[in-house]
């Protein structure tokens, strides 16, 4: 059973629609008890870093998520801000992140973006895989995914980089450490590439 964490942030309905179409069981989870029969977790998120962290901290799910992800090694997939909060902290906010990755979230450097508009990074962009992983099976990298963000994720450990994208400069758009995955883009809004990513995650 896949859990889509409903802590008040992110397009949870769109993710559910995709799994419904794939006929893969999933459910919204907002209480710790609901995680009993769950073997995979999706952590969505949009908006501001501090807002998302606050909502997660107040949701009552923080402890059990740390337990499931860090100790029980439950596969988890973070989307957009859901990925960003997996870092240690963000330039955007004051709060600490989950610290699941040794990473920092930073603001794009507008000086190296040579067109208008500069921010946010919005639209379809290609991704370049940095390592092989079954989660990237059947993905059309040139077609890429839909991005919508002004801050980006920077891994301190190169081994954690799963894929990169270019905007101003190259940044880490997909990260992976063991059971933990984070994607800066919106697979739930990226047609077949997104559907395949969610499918691959379910099949891990």
């Amino acid at each position: 059973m896949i859990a889509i964490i409903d802590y008040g942030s992110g397009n949870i309905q769109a993710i559910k629609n995709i799994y419904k179409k794939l006929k893969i069981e999933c459910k919204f989870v907002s209480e710790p008890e609901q995680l009993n029969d769950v073997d995979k977790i999706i952590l969505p998120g949009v908006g501001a870093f501090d807002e998302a962290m606050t909502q997660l901290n107040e949701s009552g799910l923080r402890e059990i998520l740390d337990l499931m992800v860090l100790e029980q090694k439950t596969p988890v997939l973070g989307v957009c801000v859901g990925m960003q909060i997996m870092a240690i902290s963000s330039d955007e906010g004051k709060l600490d992140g989950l610290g699941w990755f040794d990473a920092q979230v930073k603001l794009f450097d507008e000086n190296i973006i040579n067109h208008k508009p500069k921010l946010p990074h919005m639209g379809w962009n290609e991704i370049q895989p940095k390592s092989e992983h079954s989660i990237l099976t059947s993905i059309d990298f040139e077609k890429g995914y839909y991005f919508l963000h002004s801050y980006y994720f920077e891994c301190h450990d190169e081994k954690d980089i799963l894929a990169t994208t270019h905007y101003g400069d190259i940044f880490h758009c997909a990260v992976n450490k063991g059971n933990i995955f984070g994607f800066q883009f919106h697979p739930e809004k990226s047609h077949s590439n997104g559907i395949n990513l969610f499918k691959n995650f379910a099949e891990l």
Partner: protein
Amino acid sequence: MLRSRVIPCLLVHNKGLVKTVKFKAPKYVGDPINAVKIFNEKEVDELIVLDIDATINGVEPNYQMIEHLANESRMPLCYGGGVKTPEQAQKIIKLGVEKVALSSEAIYNPKLLIDIANIIGRQSVVVVLDIKKTLFGSYDIYSHNGKKKVKKNLFEFVAELETIGIGELVINSIDNDGVMKGYDLALIKKVREHVSVPLTVLGGAGSADDILNLIDEYKIIGASAGSLFVFKGVYKAVLINYLPEFALQKIRQISKT
């Protein structure tokens, strides 16, 4: 590299899809759900759906329709029409919609944009401005489906919107609406000079070339169109379509330069 987005724009009137010419004479074009489903299967970049009745009639957005449309969309969806409060905006977002568009309310009550941005995130707030050319070659903003002239200077107002902070600005040319003879390039140029927020243009696209030329010129811009993606040929036969493959490839090439 980031590609420009090509965005079909659908107008909903009396529960059905319509197409107008210069904001008049709505022609019935069919069922919104089927249209969105087909666009989804064609894997379009993004979609805008505007309910042109809601504000005029002073009614709530049609949440049931929005939910059905969101169900069919595996690409970002922007909904506009009748949104007056942050609660309504949030309700719409929770149905699976990415962006909420405001027009009249943004014009007469721009502070609302801040309140809405606080709840759904600035990136999801879109402002649509309907523009008509004046006799002297300058531009006026209109509201209420092109019926009410707004006493604000267009370029001052868009600068104000940038200061307030919005996710995207959609400039809709009333004069070119449904005419299919090209975008109002002069208008676009002026707006682009005055603001740096993400810009999408609507009104006038008549061919793939109109879109390609626009993207070639501005590199990163939203190219939206209604008639182009809904009609075909001299008889304006209703047939949902999108850009041909060669045009999509060209857009990828442009993004790599």
